[in-house]
């Protein structure tokens, strides 16, 4: 992200960090920080900046219809943008009405009126501690069943793509994670490969219980579809290499040359023969297929020999797929063909090739117990593909977070409303002016339900007040129904957010808002600070 403004770039950095840690909540992050600053500003700038004062002063002294205020006079201490304070735009009648303080050119006025940022930040800190306590109380610990996970994924995905697509992705995302989850081990999201295919429409995105490779066999005689196949994964060069020694061939006759070339090739042929031997051993009844997936190259001669034996061979498998291959199909990735045994082989129920324009895809499906799966993203154009890929990544993270946390929190703005109310109550326990900071924090959190209401086309205040009232009356967690604008119970409608996202939000927003508030002045923004 290319952001020129230093403050904005700082906020963008937090959003990036949020995305790295939790995979969700980047927008909330920006919203809350912005709102925290805005609320703080109300308290800090509760006095006119000295330049505004001065311009007003001169306005008064010029005595345009304001001579009754002679010299030391009352004046407004509202935030008036400088442009509006010009003599001709300020309506005379307004000025005496909002006269709150005593006007003086002395700069002590500023100290008397504005809250020092440090005090606000103290309030923020206190509010954060309380908010985390509240969050801890309202989180719901329960068994992470498929239903709950579907709800979590749906909540996350519906904010990113349209509903129809979100439903397709929800199932795919949850099922993929449940497939790769092993009790007692942390979930490795890399084991869910996301593969894109510019084809059909986005709702054709599916979960493949196996792998999809974006290349095919290079020999025309190799079968395009093999059922019930053994899979050999290896990292052995089946490519004829010229001798390392810079010698060249020495021969007198054509036969001699043949012989030399043959000797050179012997190494590669031996390797190919080992594979063929194993194939004959395991597939003697003739019904089973045999697939070789090699990380290194296979030259046309070797391909030819393998094709004659009915072996399908794919060369140059991607390195990051090698681990996935053995996890999906079973078996061991072989680095040498010397000790080949049938135990090294994996198994897949169906392997087939699919050509799309000049691109070929090889599907390895129906694996017995896949511990690595593929989400095949389809879409008509590059933009859709990227969008779906991003959505899927976020969905995966959301489900993973839920599985890691063992708990969820109600969504739809319910958490923010609850925390905000708890903070307002908590305010009286804080001594001194720091309580204003707590108030600011409580108000700032309400930006989330507000934005939800606004984006669904409802009146901000009305919706918010309704929810707050419901919450205050019943003490249950109410959120916004985005379809009707009425309060709903997210827990009952299956709207769940991640606990860790909210926690991270509270932490990072407070820290960054505090940081920004405590900056006195930006002297110069260096080049390196501009990267988002």
């Amino acid at each position, binding site marked *: 992200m290319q952001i020129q403004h230093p403050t904005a770039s700082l906020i963008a950095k937090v959003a990036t960090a949020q995305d790295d840690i939790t995979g969700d909540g980047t927008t909330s992050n920006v919203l809350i920080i912005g709102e925290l600053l805005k609320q703080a500003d109300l308290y800090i700038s509760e006095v006119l900046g000295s330049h505004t004062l001065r311009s007003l002063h001169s306005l008064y002294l010029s005595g345009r219809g304001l001579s009754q205020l002679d010299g030391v006079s009352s004046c407004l201490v509202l935030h008036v943008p400088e442009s509006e304070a010009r003599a001709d735009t300020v309506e005379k009648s307004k000025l005496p009405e909002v006269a709150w303080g005593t006007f003086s050119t002395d700069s002590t006025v500023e100290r008397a009126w504005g809250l020092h940022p440090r005090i606000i930040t103290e309030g923020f800190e206190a509010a954060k501690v309380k908010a985390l306590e509240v969050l801890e109380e309202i989180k719901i610990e329960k068994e992470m069943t498929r239903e709950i996970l579907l709800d979590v994924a749906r909540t996350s995905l519906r904010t990113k793509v349209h509903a129809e697509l979100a439903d397709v992705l929800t199932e795919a995302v949850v099922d993929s994670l449940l497939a790769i989850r092993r009790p007692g081990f942390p979930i490795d999201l890399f084991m869910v490969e996301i593969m894109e295919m510019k084809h059909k429409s986005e709702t054709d995105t599916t979960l493949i219980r196996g792998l999809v490779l974006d*290349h095919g066999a290079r020999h025309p005689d190799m079968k395009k579809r093999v059922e019930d196949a053994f899979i050999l994964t290896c990292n052995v060069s089946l490519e004829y290499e010229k001798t*390392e020694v*810079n010698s060249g061939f020495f021969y007198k006759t054509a036969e001699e040359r043949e012989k030399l070339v043959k000797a050179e090739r012997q190494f590669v042929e031996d390797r190919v023969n080992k594979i063929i031997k194993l194939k004959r051993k395991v597939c003697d009844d003739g019904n089973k297929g045999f697939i070789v997936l090699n990380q290194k*190259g296979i*030259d*046309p001669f070797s391909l030819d020999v393998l094709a004659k034996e009915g072996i399908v061979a794919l060369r140059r498998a991607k*390195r*990051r797929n090698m681990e996935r291959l053995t996890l999906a199909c079973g078996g061991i990735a072989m680095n040498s063909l010397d000790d080949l045994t049938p135990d090294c082989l994996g198994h897949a129920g169906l392997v087939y090739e699919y050509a799309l324009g000049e691109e070929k895809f090889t599907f390895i499906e129906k694996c017995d117990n896949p511990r690595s799966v593929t989400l095949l993203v389809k879409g008509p154009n590059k933009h859709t593909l990227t969008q779906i890929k991003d959505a899927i990544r976020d969905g995966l993270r959301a489900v993973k977070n839920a599985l890691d946390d063992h708990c969820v929190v109600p969504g739809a703005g319910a958490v923010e409303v609850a925390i905000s109310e708890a903070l307002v109550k908590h305010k009286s326990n804080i001594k001194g002016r720091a309580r204003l900071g707590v108030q600011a924090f409580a108000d700032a959190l309400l930006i989330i339900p507000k934005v939800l209401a606004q984006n669904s086309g409802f009146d901000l205040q009305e919706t918010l007040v309704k929810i707050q009232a419901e919450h205050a009356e019943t003490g249950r967690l109410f959120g916004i129904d985005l379809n009707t604008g009425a309060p709903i119970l997210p827990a009952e409608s299956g709207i769940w957010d991640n606990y860790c996202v909210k926690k991270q939000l509270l932490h990072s927003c407070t820290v960054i808002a505090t940081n920004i508030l405590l900056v006195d002045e930006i002297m110069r923004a260096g080049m390196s600070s501009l990267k988002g």
Partner: protein
Amino acid sequence: MTYKYSAYHSCSVQGSDSPGSLSSLKQEGGLYQDKHLDAAIAWQGKLTTHKEELQAKNPFLQNLLSAEGVMSSDGVWRVQAFPSGKDIPSLTRAFPSNPKSLIPPEGSIKVWSDFLHVQLHPKSICIIQKYNHDGEAGRLEGFGQGESLLQEPTYLEELEDRLHFYVEECDYLQGFQVLCDLHDGFSGLGAKATELLQDEYAGRGILTWGLLPGPYTLGEPQKNFYRLFNTALGLVNIAAHSSLVCPLSLGGSLGLRPEPPVTFPHLRYDVTLPYHSSALLATALDTITVPYRLCSSSISMVHLADMLSFSGRKVVTAGASIPFPAAPGHSLPDTLAQFGGTIPCTPLSACGEPSGTRSFAQSVVLRGVDKTRQTSQISPGTSPSSPLHACTSGEEVLAQYLQQLQPGVLSSSQLLLSPCRVVPPYPRFFSSRLNQQGLILDGTHNGTAVETIPVLTTLCSSSLLHRALGRLAGELANLDLRRWASFLAAGVEQDDMEETIQELHNLAQCYKDGDSLIN
């Protein structure tokens, strides 16, 4: 920065670049474009079409397009099939008879794609969105920035996927050619890329060509110091991970102090124009890489690299004579005998004048010498005037000459019949003394445009590098890196720089002339 992999004679280009440097070049190339919009409209209701105007192509590109394909009035793009033979599609046929109109106006050329007429495969280009191509801020200018780019999973995976697409297609993978800028952040990107390539495709040749801009001024100290840092870090890191690395530049030196750019006796080129300098470097590169690109040749990338990089001398220098000064009617032995003790080569590696240095190993390619002129046609019975005249084949003549020149040096030489084609869009900067075949006439102007030129190139590991690398290390040691905090911020540490200086000294040591050991 461009990668090229070569599998004997099929080759493809992959590059990564910052947005903006492609200008009117479409990321997906023009070949696959489907503009049949009207045919696919199934929507029954009202339809509004919004069209975005393409960035105006300069007249030269439009000419190119109309010469290669037919851009019909409805915007449908059809490409004429070129016969795919061994030689380049005959450009002279494709271009109209009036070549004047095809010379690109020099002012309109801003980026490399403006004079590129190759249609790229849609998978070829990978654009780095993170940095700006030019402008004040946000450019990819530090080694660390480039290096960290390839540590980000998005770029890394994209690069791997794109590369994989081509690599999987290869029957016999020889290796990779990496072309990258040494003076900016791309040197870091190149270093990381070669590291990944070496890791993934062990045993394959990785030949890296580090490109440097020709002229620079002392006026912009930041740029100048960055250039020095990037060059040093790039050279050392790339040398560690590739089979061979060769700096290519028209500038005079690698160091801080600007030296006048190199000159070619029969060319009048403007060193400030990337259009001119890239044409010259491309010509040299095209010829230097001949040994492992030809079907008939038995040398592979690895062999060439092994021969030149003997005992750790992984940095090599290039030189070229463009055009190779031959007069019409003279045979190759005559021409070579004229030169006397030196090959008429312009150094292209910004390492200074090669005089007084010796080379340890070299690969020399000469192209564009007629079959009839390769040997001296002496009538039987007369004794040859020199050993060169006695040779029976052109290859022998060249090999013999090199042997005479520098006895005891490991040399490999290649002689090619086909000359280098210089029809537009090649810039026209040749002296008027050249005829159509690029041969030198005796001072008379004959008016015809030069179409082909003979070219001689050398790639050698020379003791010149002892001085050049040592000097680079010395200049680095005198600088205080802490003054360039923004460079450090991008991920390079003070210790890295000290290590680099040490490495440069070590590299320089490899090129120490054997004689000086005795002294």
